[in-house]
């Protein structure tokens, strides 16, 4: 399969690979996917004053899955929690020029963002919305 230059770039030079401690103050963690399906994404955000100051990922999956999560961490940094929730899988598809067969990779990335945000909100206390 021919990849877009952007997918290749993210795959060869992934941004923000790594992990935060899950119990660290302001950290939200989302793990989505399943090994049987061939992709698992772990996406983490670090929030200060309602702004995402740092993001990290680790992904088991194909090149498009790795690129989608790498791009997601780039986009998350600097966004408010509210704006981060607005990132859509279709934005990722467009930016990376993903073919139809790889759209599920972008869906997984959106799910990972949502899961990380929910985890963060849950840790902030009961007044936050914990549902997706």
């Amino acid at each position, binding site marked *: *399969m021919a*990849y877009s230059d952007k997918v*290749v770039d993210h*795959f060869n030079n*992934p941004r923000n*690979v790594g*992990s935060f401690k899950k119990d660290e103050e302001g950290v939200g963690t989302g*793990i*989505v*996917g*399943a*090994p*049987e*399906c*061939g*992709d*698992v*994404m*772990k996406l983490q955000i670090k929030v200060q004053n309602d702004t995402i100051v740092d993001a990290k990922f*680790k*992904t*088991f*999956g*194909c*090149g498009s*899955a*790795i690129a989608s999560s790498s791009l997601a961490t780039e986009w998350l940094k600097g966004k408010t929690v509210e704006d981060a929730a607005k990132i859509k899988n279709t934005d990722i598809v467009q930016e990376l020029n993903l073919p139809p*067969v790889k759209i*599920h990779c972008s*869906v*997984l990335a959106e*799910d990972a963002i949502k899961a990380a945000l929910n985890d963060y909100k849950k840790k902030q206390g009961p007044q936050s919305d914990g549902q997706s």
Partner: protein
Amino acid sequence: MKFPIYLDYHSTTPVDPRVLETMLPYFTEKFGNAASRNHAFGWEAEEAVEHARQQIAHIINADSKEIVFTSGATESNNLALKGIVEMYREKGDHIIISSTEHRSVLDTAKALETKRGVKVTYLPVDKQGMVNPDDVRAALTDKTVLISIMLANNEIGTINPMADIGKIAKEKGVLLHCDATQGVGKIPVDVQKMGIDLLSCTAHKLYGPKGIGVLYVRKKAPRVRLAPLIDGGGHERGMRSGTLAVPLIVGFGKAVELCEQEMASESAKLSALRDRLHTSITGALEEVYLNGHPTQRLPHNLNLSFAFVEGESLLMGMKEIALSSGSACTSATLEPSYVLKALGVGADLAHSSIRFGLGRFTTEEEIDYTAKRMIETVTKLREMSPLYEMSKEGIDLKSVQWAAH
């Protein structure tokens, strides 16, 4: 070293220059139709075809009259299954195949099942990919008209005990077809000793041209008959009409002859290189699993699963090497390899599998480079893998409640 490195010889092989040289005159000055009985052009073509027939018959210990030319192994498999079912439909409506057959056998059997109401038994294989002859015996009924078992698997290289299966088929008087596409020219094949009645193979897997295959159809003890798929001028004893592709046939014959001459030295060289690749990789990386049989396997095949990394990303990380993966992401269906699944390999490890296919032009330098790049890429991707991280933290991945998607 020349890039990209080709390690996908199970998929196809380049035409050996000696084969090409033999073929060339048959495109131009020796262009006759082998069916033209009335002039020198035809005789010349016919003689060349008969010579190739003998070369091919020889390598499987058959008679040249038992060789039917087709367009390739897919057609041969179709012709064997459909042709036998059609011809022997009054005798019965049951066939037996293994669950790791090539798609051209599996899908043909499925088509016969749905369109013709044929009953198909899909035999399981053991953890190393081998068919148990006792399972073949147990599956036979008085309505069984054909057993079709592959000689060697195209993904994992496991070689089936054909002689044992052939003995059972003979005992019960049931025809045995063998898809020997991956085996002919690589390992000894003997249709007499193995009790094979029909055998498929193709030129492009053994350094011959694409577009030409063979179905061996036994003529004596028993005399096998088949209904043709293609009607026309009655070529190939009426089993496969159509003007013979003389240059391709000449190439097929030469390719087989070279394979036969060089089989012993070539398989020794390739299995040594294959083992070198295997030990270099497993010496440097943990959690690498061999798929297939440790000894009963094609000398040029290696199939490994690299836990915690996905196959397509591995291939993407080492683009300068042509390899193949059992990962879903490399297939159009988004399903991981059904062959590995049949072995009981978990879907997670099936997604992590890489097939190395070595061949005539593979060098030690290429193997050492591949091992080095494999180790680098797996290490890099494991650093990025949440599964590797969890496993290092002592989490049992099987105990995690994953959300399948």
